[in-house]
């Protein structure tokens, strides 16, 4: 089964491990992630200006590209998912902006040049933006996923970290209950992990404030990491390259700030899924992690 896939810039560069593990896991589950023939940056932040459409053209263009090869598009990065989904919401709900954005799309000859068979159709929200974990739930099914586990992760205490981008605003994202999300827990349960519930699972990691105000962002991340550690987690899983960066790389600073700080690996949920599905380590690529997850993984489950 082929499903259109929008990787986003980060997954092509800094978060290649996320991209590789996701594709390999999908393949093992009989799904081929078909990367959009052309795509651009998603825009990275959803614009809060309300009187202009310029700022949503990037995500809308990507959605329009996706509409030419399928009725849904799968993505992984929380930011990409957030921006694409909210832009899609605008295209479905706001006729005025929909019309304006399409004026730009009609002038988009680049796409036509790139692939001859493209016909430029108006984009009216015909594509569903799907997160990879939603694909696992709705296309594969968590029960069926559990059947495919070759390497059960029993005994590995995993703290699922949602962050904020997947969940809010509730009415537009419709991903899960922002106050009590469960999809991650359901997923982790299906692949046999011991799920660690920790109260900071939906708190912000500091996001891109890491660029302007590192102190603030590290304080946010530290709050999340400490909470997971306190509940006895062996590893934190995330679905966002920026969260991963803040929670993982910034443990360097946390260790400087706090005496006796214990480090904890932060990995992508697809890397954990890969282990459960018995994929070889080279497909999972732990080289990008600051805190090496391999020792704890080797100790608790077989790698």
């Amino acid at each position, binding site marked *: 089964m082929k499903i259109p896939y929008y990787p986003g810039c980060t997954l092509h560069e800094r978060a290649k491990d996320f991209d590789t593990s996701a594709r390999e896991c999908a393949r093992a589950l009989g799904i081929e992630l078909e990367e959009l023939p052309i795509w651009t940056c998603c825009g990275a932040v959803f614009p809060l200006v309300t009187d202009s459409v310029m700022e949503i053209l990037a995500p809308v263009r990507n959605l329009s590209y996706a509409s030419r090869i399928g009725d849904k598009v799968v993505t992984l990065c929380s930011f990409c998912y957030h921006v694409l989904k909210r832009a899609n919401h605008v295209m479905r709900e706001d006729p005025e902006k929909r019309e304006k954005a399409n004026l730009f799309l009609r002038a988009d000859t680049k796409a036509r040049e790139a692939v001859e068979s493209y016909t430029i159709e108006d984009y009216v929200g015909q594509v569903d933006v799907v997160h990879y974990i939603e694909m696992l739930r709705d296309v594969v099914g968590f029960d069926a996923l559990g059947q495919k586990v070759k390497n059960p992760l029993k005994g590995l205490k995993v703290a699922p970290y949602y962050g904020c981008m997947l969940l809010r605003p509730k*009415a537009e994202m419709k991903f899960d*209950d*922002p*106050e009590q999300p469960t999809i991650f827990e359901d997923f982790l349960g299906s692949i046999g992990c011991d799920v660690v519930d920790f*109260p900071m699972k939906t708190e912000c990691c500091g996001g891109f404030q890491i660029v302007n105000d590192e102190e603030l962002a590290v304080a946010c991340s530290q709050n999340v990491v400490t909470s997971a550690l306190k509940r006895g987690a062996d590893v934190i899983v995330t679905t966002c390259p920026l969260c991963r960066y803040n929670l993982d790389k910034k443990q360097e600073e946390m260790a400087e700030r706090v005496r006796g700080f214990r480090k904890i690996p932060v990995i992508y949920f697809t890397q954990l899924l890969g282990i459960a599905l018995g994929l070889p380590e080279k497909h999972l690529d732990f080289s990008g992690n600051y805190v090496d997850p391999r020792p704890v993984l080797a100790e608790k489950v077989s790698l």
Partner: protein
Amino acid sequence: MEHRIGVFVCHCGSNIAGVVDVKRVAQELAKYPGVAYSTDYTYMCSDPGQNLVKDAIKKHRLTGVIVSACSPTLHEATFRRAGRSAGLNPYQVEMANIREHCSWVHQHDKEQATRKAIRIIKTMVEKVKLDEALAPIAVPLTKRALVVGGGVAGIQAALDIANAGYEVVLVEKSPSIGGHMAQLSETFPTLDCSQCILTPKMVEAGQHPRIRLMTYSEIEDVSGYVGNFKVKIRKKSAYVNRDVCTGCGLCTQKCPAKVESEFDEGLAKRKAIYTPFAQAVPNKPVLDAEHCTYFKTGKCGVCKKICPVDAVDYEMKDEVVEEEVGAIVVATGFDLYPMAKMGEYGGGKYKDVVTSLQFERILSASGPTTGEVQRPSDGKVPKEVVFLTCVGSRDPEGHVPYCSKVCCMYLTKHAMLYKHKVHDGQAYLFYMDVRTGGKGYEEFYQRASEEDDVLYIRGKVSKIFEEDGKVVVWGVDTLTGKKIEIEADMAVMGLAMVPSGAARELANKLKIHTDEWGFLSEAHPKLRPVESLAPGFFLAGAAQGPKDIPEAVAQASGAASKVAALFSEEVYHREPAIAWIDEDRCAGCRICVSVCPYDAAVFDEDKKVARIQEAICEGCGACIAACPSGTATQKNLTDDQIYNMVSAALEE
């Protein structure tokens, strides 16, 4: 017949006369065919104005009257009475609305307004020409009331009706009457003990010779109409013959099965055979088959063996009884908004984050801790307690938009009682606004903050979570603009009030309206607050909207007085301007039966024609519009009348 119509044009001070040229209107109408007399006056509704109408009826031998003034909802009754006292049939007195429909909306074009007023009155002249003399419909009355719900509102309504001399059937779904008030510790703003003031009323209701108490019973079906309802009531099987049972309590003592107590809000256990609380009325147990060891495994039977009067009967079945009543008071009360929906506060998974009713039980001398404040997780005395108002209320985005009205006050009471019991404790109360509308309420709030050192923080709580045996509360103080973190021992949720679980289903059975949240709708928000739009149904207590005890009691007494007023007549009189079906012309297609929203149109199987039940028809006109043969007609609003009115309105 010669028409001799009188037209009376009201100035309504300057309300009408400031826009409409009333003199000219009266002069024009005097020329209209059939009009025998036409005049204008400053205030027709005043005594001299009414006398003007009465005198003219007699002097000019008028056959019909048009009062051109305000809306019929205001003064139609006034002028119909005046007409009747002058010897005219009241249904031949009509209002022509030239105020709301004319002068008020056309203030800037006096000429057009005057011409419109003339047309409006002419249409009404055409209507009144064909108005028949009607008499109100007399409906027989069963002078016996049903009260649904045995909380304080239901008890009060039942007592008031019974004390007025009428029989009452009081139906309550749980094993005892008392409702939520029986669960409360003390009541604001006087801090008198809730049970102490309630139990005398419960006992009175239980022993009143004119009250038939049916606890552990539910309404199955209601048919009929005002004055003549037939109600089917399901008496749930208690597996205890309550006529024989002496209430000795041996069965409850010996029963081995323990279940979370509903009365103690899950903070304590009850037995499978139980009375919900010590002062229950009736004070006789019921057996909860779902949790009974005998029903689950077939073994045990201890209660049956030990009962000295052999009242336990495992074979007992539900019983459906039918009662005839003339009026129904609905007092089905409220529930708290489910804690499970408050994910940000743990959704019910933290033991030390309790609902307001749980905290009532913790404070109550009859509660699981006999009134000592202990937190549920480990029984320790909490030294810091956070109280949250507006949990679910006033949150249009996530929960319910309305204010639950009583939470500010009961949380203030909670915080105060907590401080009275734990002197070195700290009470924090987060609020959006402190709403203290009620006698003595503001003073009570001042006392809590000044004498009892309750710390009021204006702001919302964003999150509560457990950490190191504490409940950590994250909030904001919007007066200082600072984020606040309190490591508390316990948090109390002022959850929104919502209509009780079964209320919406019951409202459907009774065919009475509810608002979008399921609260029962009153007939008029200001002037008919205790009546439903459906005749014969009255509302009491929190089923109609969030209320405190005094308001619930006042509304219950109001509903009871409406019932007593209804029962004070020998028969019930209804408006006669309703639908009528000529059975000689009816083809029996039954379309009217299918469109009637009140089930007033019925099919006569013998004659094979449809018939309108006069006692039920509200005169909405649905059947008349739907009738394919034009056989169904509205009295005093016939097709002929409407054609004539339209012609008059369109005449050049």
